[in-house]
């Protein structure tokens, strides 16, 4: 695997370069869009897709944590995925908003697509809020994982079902529309797919790094904790009646609080 890592990285780099090049020189500007504005598509859609993929992956990792062997790293993976998904989600919204400014005249005009992706943003923002509200690590993992698994249900609704059915939308039909037939200039489609795959791959790479960082932090915590266990002998109970010794006993316990 490690031997593959470098070539893969290069491949990814090439793919991304190709996307950027293709977006501006290979693919023709889509008809029906003002000027060259349609070229943002190649960054807008992949971002949206990748964010959804990340959210979904987070749900799966959380499920593995809950119903598997409760290994913290799965929870870390879920957290990292959601953080990344939020970032990509914001990218999709911003690129979309820029595009909307050109196409529809305003950055924000309550298009169902905009609304629902914002709700998705809030949903996973709430995930972080929840994590911050639970002091005990074990409980935090349990609760936040459960919430992320709930996301497996909610996210598809927010990304795909509701935007399609919530009344009239300016937002273009998806590439793969209800009839399942692809209506798009093949060159555009090629670039779009390349970009989507590329960005998703990049996201997973970053995600991998982020997860490892989180795991390392956990390890550091545990080491500090084990040292605590080892150095326990110096500490006395902290519950003795002599006022003279009290400060020395309370000081370390004060240090323990996190």
């Amino acid at each position: 695997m490690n031997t593959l890592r470098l070539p893969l990285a290069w491949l990814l780099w090439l793919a991304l370069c190709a996307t950027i090049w293709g977006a501006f020189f290979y693919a023709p500007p889509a008809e029906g869009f003002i000027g060259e504005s349609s070229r943002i598509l190649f960054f807008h859609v992949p971002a949206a897709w990748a964010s959804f993929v990340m959210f979904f992956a987070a749900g799966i990792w959380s499920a593995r944590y809950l119903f598997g062997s409760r290994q913290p790293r799965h929870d870390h993976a879920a957290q990292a995925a959601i953080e990344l998904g939020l970032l990509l989600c914001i990218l999709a919204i911003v690129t979309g908003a820029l595009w909307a400014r050109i196409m529809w005249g305003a950055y924000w005009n309550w298009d169902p697509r905009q609304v629902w992706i914002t709700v998705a943003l809030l949903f996973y923002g709430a995930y972080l809020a929840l994590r911050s509200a639970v002091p005990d690590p074990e409980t935090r993992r349990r609760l936040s994982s459960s919430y992320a698994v709930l996301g497996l249900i909610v996210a598809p609704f927010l990304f795909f079902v509701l935007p399609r059915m919530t009344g009239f939308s300016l937002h273009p039909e998806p590439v793969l529309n209800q009839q399942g037939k692809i209506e798009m200039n093949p060159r555009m489609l090629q670039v779009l797919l390349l970009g989507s795959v590329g960005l998703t791959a990049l996201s997973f790479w970053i995600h991998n790094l982020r997860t490892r960082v989180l795991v390392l932090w956990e390890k550091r915590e545990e080491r500090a904790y084990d040292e605590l266990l080892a150095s326990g002998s110096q500490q006395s109970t902290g519950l003795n009646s002599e006022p003279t010794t009290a400060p020395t006993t309370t000081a370390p316990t004060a240090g323990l609080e996190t």
Partner: protein
Amino acid sequence: MKRRDSSHQPQPRPAQQHTWFRETAAIFLKEWRCELRTRYALNTLFLFAITTLVVVSLSLGPLGVATAERTTVLPVLLWVILLFAVISGLPRTFVHEEETRTAIALRLSASPTAIFVGKSAYSLSVVLALEAVVTPLFSAMMQLPIANPGLLALALALGGYGLAVGGALVAAIIAQARSTGTLFAVLALPILLPLLVLAIFISRAAIAGDGAGDALTQLLLYDATISAAGLLLFPTIWNP
């Protein structure tokens, strides 16, 4: 599946599906007993619902909204009122247990599934009661004729079910967090929002008198998935 092995455990016990129903019923009864003696959730629920209802109808009035807009705006108002009322009243179901330390006794005595179903049933009954009070009042105050009451009732039932179950699930989650009043809304609203919009759609159709289309099936789907998720997740949320 947890319940299965309970059948061959030391002291003799009745057949399992009976125990399951018995437990659920016991929880449901307990909730209502406690509530009827303290009336706390009911107080907040109805306080909010009635206040907003009266305020809205006073400050919009039957004439406040152009007749063209009414079918668009009024269902929205109705459901916003219901949603907020439920959210301001429901979290009690679980937070209260943790804060008054009764959760321990419950954990020891009942199976998670029974607890979840029992409490959801309780919340559902409260929500339905609320709807039964609010909706007629609302349509009366706003002089809003309803073309298809049956459909509206269906929307209220399905939407209320989703609110109750989803709300109970999120309440269970925040009960173990350091739950500030706002956290519940933050977690619950995004989950309940799709529900809300679907319900609004159907209510509109009911008021206008045209068909609900696939919104109904989607609402059903949402309810079903939420319930399934609840049954699946609650044990992991509830048990340490």
